[in-house]
């Protein structure tokens, strides 16, 4: 089977700093990583390939440097990598992103065989919308299976798939049809370390670099800023609260007095809490 995995290169947000004066993200020197959620999607795809045979194509839309993310994915064991990169894509919101990616997936399908499954991560750690997966599914008319925790079975001959999908308050067992789009939940598998063989393969592989035209996109008004209905009008920093916490210094105090003092302080600020806590404790 043929599986396409969409991955996004994101700044390592643990190391993001905001410029104190201009309120802009200081990207210089911030390392980039594969969006952590996408690794679970990639791992699931590799497992399915190892079980059912076939190929895994990784796809990203981004600047030329996003090639690094694709090389890493090849190092994990992906068979082929496509970088969709063009200045026309700059400023894409999720609608424009899912348009460009779905066109590229269609082209990947024409060139290397129609994918049976398209995987995305649950969400990214930068844009953090979880909207791109559903967007691709709708545009390519794929069955949409979000928040998938497990894929118990696939029947390739019948074109059927069973998945376990997390939802509010429980897990749905769903049966659906291929081709489908799956957004994979985090923590659902253990991401492999690439083998030496994979590392060598990654080093000598070509990452395919596609422009909008290469991906068969002829309507550029649907790409980038022009194709994005949302407009970011303001970016600003949340301000610190004016007053800091009232601090109780515990040095050399007896714990019992200290605890009583804290409870008194809590109840002074929230007198109604006494009822609440007493009621809740059920004693």
């Amino acid at each position, binding site marked *: 089977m043929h599986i396409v995995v969409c991955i996004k290169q994101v700044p390592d947000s643990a190391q993001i700093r905001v410029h104190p004066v201009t309120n802009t993200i200081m990207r210089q020197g911030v390392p980039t990583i594969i969006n952590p959620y996408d690794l679970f999607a990639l791992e699931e795809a590799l497992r399915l390939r190892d079980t059912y045979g076939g190929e895994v194509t990784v796809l990203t839309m981004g600047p030329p440097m996003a090639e690094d993310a694709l090389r890493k994915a090849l190092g994990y064991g992906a068979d082929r990598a496509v970088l969709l990169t063009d200045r026309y894509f700059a400023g894409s919101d*999720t609608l424009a992103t899912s348009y460009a990616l779905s066109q590229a997936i269609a082209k990947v399908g024409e060139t290397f065989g129609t994918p049976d499954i398209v995987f995305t991560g649950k969400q990214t750690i930068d844009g953090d919308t979880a909207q791109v997966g559903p967007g691709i599914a709708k545009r390519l008319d794929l069955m949409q299976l979000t928040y998938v925790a497990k894929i118990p079975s696939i029947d390739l001959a019948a074109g059927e798939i069973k998945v376990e999908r997390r939802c509010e308050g429980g897990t749905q067992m769903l049966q659906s049809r291929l081709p489908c789009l799956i957004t994979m939940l985090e923590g659902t598998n253990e991401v492999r370390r690439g083998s030496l063989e994979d590392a060598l393969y990654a080093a000598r592989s070509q990452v395919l670099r596609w422009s909008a035209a290469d991906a068969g996109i002829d309507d550029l008004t649907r790409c980038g800023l022009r194709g994005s209905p949302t407009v970011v*009008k303001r970016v600003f920093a949340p301000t610190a609260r004016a007053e800091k916490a*009232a601090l109780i210094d515990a040095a050399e105090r007896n714990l019992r007095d200290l605890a009583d003092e804290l409870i008194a302080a809590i109840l002074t600020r929230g007198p109604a809490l006494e009822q609440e806590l007493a009621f809740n404790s059920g004693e």
Partner: protein
Amino acid sequence: MSSANREAPRPASGRAGTKKELPDHFKDYRHVWVFIELERGQVHPVSFELLGEGRKLADKLGVELAGIVLGPPGETTQSAVAEAFAYGADLVYNVEAPLLADYRNEPFTKAMTDLVNAHKPEILLLGATTLGRDLAGSVATTLKTGLTADCTELDVDTDGSLAATRPTFGGSLLCTIYTLNYRPQMATVRPRVMAMPRRMDKPVGRVIRHQLSVAEDDIVTKILGFLPDSQSGKANLAYADVVVAGGLGLGAAENLQLVKDLARAIGAEHGCSRPLVQKGWLSADRQIGQTGKTIRPKLYIAAGISGAIQHRVGVEGADLIVAINTDPNAPIFDFAHLGIITDAIRFLPALTEAFTRRLSPHSRDKLAS
């Protein structure tokens, strides 16, 4: 977050100020809609929180607030309709069909997009739950309109546009997003970000019913079963009135018991910061913060948690935040109301004991006599 909490907005680089006149075919889009999320007989409370916000937007715009209730024929759907009125809706659009009994993307997307195309709302709000996000993404793509995710503040501009503010880069920045040239303007909001409005006894008002234009045979995806989360381990963190949480400062997994003991003594739910989930000390549904749960309790006690921005955005809605930390410079003291600088491992048992003394009716009787 309140608007008073903010600095003067700054212009963004690049995408600002691209307002054109709204295309003619969108000019008759009016009114504010809230999707009422009904699953297994229950309305998700986020829907009521959104009706509260939707009411404010509708009043500012001078338009009506509608609840959208999709569900199976019968009593649960009709009681969701009644609840929508009780929480402020002026009218309800209702689609009843057996295949709307359990959530599936295909029939819900169809029902929702048909309603939008028929009645043309200017604003459509959904909860950022697993269901809401699944549905919103499909609906927005079908309608080819803008969708702003996980908003923390909604407002209308002087020209009537929806200004949807959301945290970005893990909460270190906020941005305000507009959908200027398309309709409806769609947004999702996480549970517990907005305050719950007061329920009023209001009679059921205007209900506009629609047929669903698909049949079961047209729907590919079938539900084979549903496994509810086990009742015992289930954390209802988001809606707890009192929450106690532990962080890396606890030092070892076994010290989490101190947090659980305090939680039990005061009838609280317990939670944690993300590293504890990553270490496997607690399950992911106990994580509080940007990539975990947003909480809005009356009292939040954080022990050994530094207060990183990703944690902060999940707890800022708490009425009273108490932090226990050995480091007087820990960032959590920037947003906690009360802080105590001490070793949580020694202090938590003392606090549990003191609460138990104070709260047990037995001791209270003794105090009174």
